[in-house]
């Protein structure tokens, strides 16, 4: 039984009115806003802001007497971001509405240029995010190689201490910014509407805004290098922040800009998940990845404002000479630490939960079994999201702040490992008596489980205050969070990409290269970071350019493996370029025989996602249940039903009836 979309509440087409006005196309393709104009806008904005800053506060120089006027830098960066957004066309709609005009209608577009524009198609935004996140990741990765080069020798230096500290700060900040959106950005945006049976996001313009401001954040944080870098690492601790030179402004503005994007993305995804579920998509049928995204959204929207406030205070201290963090004038060096970690700890779960969700989402497909303990998994992620607001002071155990509260924060931190551990209840339960297919995504799932176990258990070590006395601030902490973020989130991301790219781009990734990528990635990841636990335990603090000579062997193992890990990324890039452009192989509509709703669409997914809004029958995990209903009524045969298992029975490309053939289909062009 298919339902008529016009009669179903909440299923209206995006932008109903402007559709039949193609005549509104103004000027040439190249004159309409696109990324080129954004670059122009950013440059003009920066120069304008800088000029203005010099006018209003010309005599201000940052404390280090670098000759930099940081009022001018801050204003330059802020105007630059505004110019970037104006150039891409993000401001057109709100400004038009503000002055009471009808904004120019969106112009339909299908060509490659849409990837360089402010679009309203969540699939385009997802692909933009993918390229954006990978750009962040590879930039940060190159900087990591530089760090490991310096640490090859305990005393011989490749970089001077100022360059080294700039590299360390830049690496950490770029990676943390990337990780806030690594999975939620590309896959969260691309998949969420498809998974919940929606044609659109709740706020498509806000979604596009979140990407374009995220990309502006990349430029802002890179600009720190032009101003001499910043000496504080990604944590930006305050009195040092206050005395640092111009690069610090890039850090503060950059994090604020990224933060605004995080809040926007969080609101949009949360509203979409809550309001745009298809009929029948009850909370107990929502795919587990969507639960993960929802829990992440709670953190994105509620924790990030604390970062914005902290960054704003920092900017004021540095430019307007307020004293939020200056103790002699009534401020406190603890204030930054508190505000930063009040955001920072929820942030680590912003970086963890999407990875959990993705792994749990993919696992049933490769085990051909239902997801074990679905409700526990969903409740656990909500629990993690709640608890993560009550643990931040475990980053400050030795700081002298609230020392008598340490038992409490030790307790809350250890409590959070209960819902975190549900990841293993769910994955191990799903593996029980399964029929495991070892495709690339499955390898990454197993790799993620292996790594995250180490990451999670070392977290419990860190939460034990007496042990933390030794390992706090050392490479042990560094190894811990690389195991959770890189070993957890980034492994999940690559698994997710191998899994979903065939649907996203319609082209299969090369299997052999994928498997090579996995094994090199897994082995060199562990060889890079495991020795660092020992290095930390043996007394090497983080962010140093000199260390004890007896630690050279361990550091060198780590460095050499890090270079090989970098080479492993190259395998991915080669695979990506080869499989997507040089020698593309068309992917079947549902190559993995997944029951998931997102797979019941033709490839490439049409801009409207579903020709009819599906009516959802069940959760998508009824594998191994021959009699089970198909996951949803799509108005046609689903591609796979629960009983079907073998690859041969999957629907092949072209077998699906093209929606354009059906007479009641409205072949309207995509709305942008």
């Amino acid at each position: 039984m298919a339902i008529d979309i016009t009669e179903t509440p909440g299923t209206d087409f995006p932008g109903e009115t402007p559709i039949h006005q193609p005549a509104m196309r103004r000027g040439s393709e190249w004159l309409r806003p696109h990324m080129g104009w954004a670059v122009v806008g950013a440059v003009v904005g920066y120069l304008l802001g800088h000029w203005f800053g010099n006018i209003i506060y010309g005599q201000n120089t940052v404390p280090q007497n670098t000759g930099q006027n940081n009022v001018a830098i801050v204003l330059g960066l802020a105007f630059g971001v505004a110019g970037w957004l104006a150039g891409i066309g993000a401001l057109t709609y709100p400004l038009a509405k503000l002055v009471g005009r009808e904004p120019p209608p969106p112009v339909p577009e299908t060509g490659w240029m849409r990837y360089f524009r402010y679009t309203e198609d969540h699939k385009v935004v997802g692909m933009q995010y993918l390229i954006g996140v990978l750009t962040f990741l590879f930039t940060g990765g190159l900087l990591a190689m530089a760090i490991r080069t310096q640490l090859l020798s305990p005393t011989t230096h490749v970089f001077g201490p100022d360059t080294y500290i700039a590299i360390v700060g830049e690496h950490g900040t770029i990676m943390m910014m990337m990780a806030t959106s690594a999975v939620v950005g590309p896959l969260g945006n691309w998949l969420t509407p498809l998974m919940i049976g929606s044609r659109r996001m709740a706020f498509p313009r806000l979604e596009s805004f979140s990407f374009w401001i995220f990309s502006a954040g990349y430029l802002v944080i890179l600009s720190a290098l032009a101003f001499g870098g910043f000496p504080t690492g990604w944590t930006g601790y305050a009195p040092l922040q206050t005395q640092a030179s111009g690069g610090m402004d890039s850090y503060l503005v950059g994090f604020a800009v990224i933060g605004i994007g995080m809040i926007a993305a969080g609101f949009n995804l949360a509203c979409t998940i809550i309001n745009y579920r298809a009929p029948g998509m009850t909370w107990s049928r929502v795919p587990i990845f969507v639960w993960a995204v929802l829990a992440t959204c709670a953190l994105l929207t509620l924790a990030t404002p604390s970062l914005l406030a902290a960054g704003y205070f920092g900017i004021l201290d540095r430019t307007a000479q307020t004293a939020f963090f200056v103790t002699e004038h009534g401020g406190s060096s603890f204030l930054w630490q508190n505000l930063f970690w009040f955001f920072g700890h929820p942030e680590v779960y912003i970086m963890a939960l999407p990875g959990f969700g993705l792994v749990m989402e993919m696992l049933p497909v490769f085990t051909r079994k239902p997801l074990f303990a679905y409700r526990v998994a969903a409740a656990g992620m909500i629990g993690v999201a709640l608890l993560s607001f009550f643990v931040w002071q475990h980053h400050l155990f030795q700081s002298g702040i609230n020392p008598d509260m340490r038992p409490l924060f030790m307790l809350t931190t250890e409590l959070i490992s209960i819902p975190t551990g549900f990841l293993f209840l769910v994955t191990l339960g799903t593996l029980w008596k399964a029929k495991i297919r070892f495709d690339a995504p499955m390898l990454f799932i197993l790799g993620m489980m292996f790594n995250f176990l180490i990451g999670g258990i070392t977290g419990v070590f860190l939460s034990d205050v007496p042990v933390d006395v030794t390992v706090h601030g050392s490479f042990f902490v560094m190894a811990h969070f690389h195991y959770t973020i890189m070993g957890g989130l980034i492994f999940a991301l690559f698994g997710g990409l191998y899994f979903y790219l065939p649907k996203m781009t319609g082209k299969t990734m090369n299997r052999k290269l994928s498997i090579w990528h996995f094994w090199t990635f897994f082995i060199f990841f562990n060889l890079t970071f495991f020795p660092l636990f020992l290095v930390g335990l043996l007394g090497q603090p983080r962010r140093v350019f000199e260390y004890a000579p007896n630690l050279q062997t361990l550091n060198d193992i780590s460095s050499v493996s890090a270079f090989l890990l970098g080479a492993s990324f190259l395998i991915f890039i080669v695979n990506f370029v080869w499989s997507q452009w040089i020698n593309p192989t068309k992917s079947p509509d549902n190559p993995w025989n997944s029951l998931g709703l997102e797979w019941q669409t033709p490839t490439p997914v049409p801009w409207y996602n579903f020709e009819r809004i599906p009516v959802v029958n069940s959760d998508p995990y009824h594998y191994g249940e021959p009699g089970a209903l198909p996951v949803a009524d799509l108005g046609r045969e689903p591609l796979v039903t629960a009983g079907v298992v073998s690859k041969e029975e999957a629907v092949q490309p072209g077998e699906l009836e093209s929606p354009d053939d059906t007479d009641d289909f409205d072949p309207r062009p995509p709305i942008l």
Partner: protein
Amino acid sequence: MSVAAEGGAVSEGSGAPQGTDEPPRKEASHGWRLFAIWLVLSAIVDPLYYIFAGPHIPPGRMSSTAGGAVFDFNILIVLAIPVMIGVWVYMAYAIIQWRASKGGPEPEGGPLAANNFKIQTSWITITTVLVLFLAGFGTYELVQPEGAGGGQGPNPIWTPTSNTVLPIQVIGQQWKFTYRYPTFGGFETTQLVVPQGVSIAFHVTSLDVIHDFWAYQLGVKADANPNQDNVAFTTPYQLGSFVVRCDELCGIWHGAMYNNGAVVTKDQFEVWAQTTEKALAANTKLLPPFAYTYTPDANGADGGYYPDNVDPYSKVETYGATQPGSG
């Protein structure tokens, strides 16, 4: 589909036609096999670790607090090993036993495969018990006298039992530590010498940005904040030298901010302290009187900020130019 949880799922599973007596027998054998492998491996690895690796875990046992940290670490490892072995053995078993290329029956779906109530409750119970034990254990270890060697702020509550406590002030500054001995006339030196067998109170503070005093082999770590006195205790047991490193990023020379300290006998210490006090007497006179915190010096390594005798709204050029009177 509604999940008929609450144990009902277990009995309901028999509703599926496949639920003959064959699968349960096999299930039991997988479970017992896994359990046996886990038990044997854990029973081997745990004692091996504790006997052979345990005594050599850094930072060693140079002081009371270092020994405490090592003990905690070992207990945590002994508990972590069975957990890690459990997960990894299970994963390896699944990979070998349940891989598709091995053939075998199609996995069974249905409510039983999706929700085994017993497994879920026992998992939650076991992890909760484990975690609560760890929190209790960690708290117990922390509230010992001396508070595990961590920074306890200006008013420590977990203090040494001994009433003879030697106070030593640690002053972090870009980019070195200096040490003041208030009970020996308040001389300030770059050498850290501590007596064996005496409780020591490190009063850690900073003149500029946040540093962190990490006396590695002593198992002491405390942040140095400007205008803040952060106290950490320990009692050195063994003679010898130890490493002090700055453990909080404090600017470009953070990596070079380290020195060696020495634990000497009580008598040697007395001699050293008295000689140094005399030798430095002329310098000590020029220092500000001993205090738990000091106002940052505008002529500090990095030029400082907000010198306290200068109007913050005055012309910027004066910043860092003149030496303010000490606060």
